[in-house]
């Protein structure tokens, strides 16, 4: 249990979402590590696309504070404009995207813009970045988040990056969103998933050392449960070794809250 941090577990779980051969739109922070772990284990032919304007196969050999750091450029397969990376995603060529979220609701909608009235916000969050683009255009996507009641809310007050909207059937299709929508919410406590075709998130697995009750108590809506809620598989030694290799000082996985 205490062999790994919640962040290391999140990275390991996120990496397992990457299928071999996927073109992955790699977001900032933990997803950079998740891509590196996946590429070194079960997804040796995956490729990473970074919105800053990069495509890679091998993960960067040095530590990355941002996707635009020099080690991420060395050995890149393509250094280009952001709009070219977005072009591939707009064409439906991105299999999986990662988005960081400040707030998520039961239908997978993310708010990274405003808490409260946008005209007079209680909290001004940094904004979409490429989040809304990934949410709308990638084939499937995953978000990672600290599990707190104030973050997993009944309904986000502002949809920056749309999931399944109001949760009604075919909401995305009716609204013209080309991509498939969210498939998982990976938190510090659990993994939430969505039914095929989208809709409302349900609790799929609870991380080792935590309980269903604890997860529900920290979720801002009455969380549905999978028929069999399992325990999230702990990171393997290989996964932990890979994480250590790409985050040697624990910048992302040891020192963050």
């Amino acid at each position, binding site marked *: 249990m205490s062999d790994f941090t919640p962040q290391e577990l999140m990275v390991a779980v996120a990496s397992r979402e990457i299928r071999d051969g996927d073109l992955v739109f790699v977001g900032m922070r933990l997803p950079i590590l998740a891509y590196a772990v996946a590429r070194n284990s079960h997804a040796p032919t995956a490729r990473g696309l970074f919105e*800053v304007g990069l495509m890679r196969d091998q993960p960067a050999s040095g530590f990355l504070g941002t996707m*635009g750091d020099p080690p991420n450029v060395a050995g890149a397969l393509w250094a280009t404009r952001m709009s070219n990376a977005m072009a591939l995603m707009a064409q439906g060529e991105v299999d999986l995207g990662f988005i960081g979220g400040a707030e998520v609701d039961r239908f997978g909608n993310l708010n990274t813009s405003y808490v409260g009235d946008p005209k007079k916000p209680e909290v001004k969050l940094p904004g979409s970045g490429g989040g809304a683009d990934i949410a709308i255009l990638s084939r499937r996507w995953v978000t990672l988040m600290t599990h707190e009641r104030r973050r997993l809310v009944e309904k986000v007050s502002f949809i920056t990056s749309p999931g399944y909207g109001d949760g009604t059937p075919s909401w995305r299709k009716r609204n013209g969103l080309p991509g498939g929508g969210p498939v998982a919410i990976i938190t510090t406590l659990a993994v939430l998933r969505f039914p095929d075709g989208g809709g409302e998130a349900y609790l799929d697995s609870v991380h080792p050392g935590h309980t269903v009750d604890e997860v529900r108590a920290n979720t801002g809506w009455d969380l549905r449960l999978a028929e069999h809620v399992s325990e999230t598989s702990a990171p393997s030694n290989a996964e932990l070794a890979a994480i250590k290799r790409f985050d040697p000082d624990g910048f992302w996985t040891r020192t963050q809250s």
Partner: protein
Amino acid sequence: MSMANAIERFVPDGATVALGTALEPLIPFAAGHELIRQSRRDLELVGPISDALFDQLIGAGCVRQVTAAWVGNVSEGLGHCYRRAAEEGVPRSIAIHDHTNFSIALALWAAAWNAPYIPTRTLLGSDILNTNPHLERDGDVVRVHAVRPDVAIVHVQRCDEHGHAHAWGPLGITEEAGLAAGRVIISCEELAESAPLLKHPNRILFPETKVVAVVHAPGGAHPSPVQGYFNRDHAFFRDYAAASRTREGFEAWLKRWVLDVPDRSAYLARIDTEALRIRE
């Protein structure tokens, strides 16, 4: 040309200025700090994400409007000056035109081609459509209206005095920002002879007709990285995040790192640039 001169001549109060167009790398902090020192006011900032520079300009009271996809501190999170301005109007209130990374690129391409807008399917289903009047739903697409900066300020690795710049690494929205802008100010690590640059005309970033000023500003992107020259100074971003958490902390930071610093060389004298330098 000196940075002070370039900013004084080509960035008036009220200007729309594109900055940080390569996202995390090549952010023209030296130029941004000069804007602060010259007390530029009522600027509209245009960019994709902005790693702390927009936050500093907002905190310094230079900014009337932000037209961007993301404003904060990439490795640390929130932009505290941005929050104070948006939440409390401190030091002044700002207008915010939210974009996504893709939509701000399209807005600049529209301006570059003098198209009124470019239609796209991104933004469908996002509430950003409700807060930015320049993003307009039209049937099954969104019209992203053109954004035309008065000036784009770009940091590059090499440039000659005529504005023939070579930049490398990921370039984000740099090309479209420069083409869309009325004029371009370039700051560069190396002021180079023309011949070696023109030997590779495919690598020239902008037509010389757009470039109004070239400033030799080695280290001018610190703490952001410059491919081939400097790594990112993660600790500097962390320290800025901590300092800027309060208004007083920000003001002290600004005094120490910008207002009391006559120019970039004085700033760099306080940094261990050798520790950041890339040796290949």
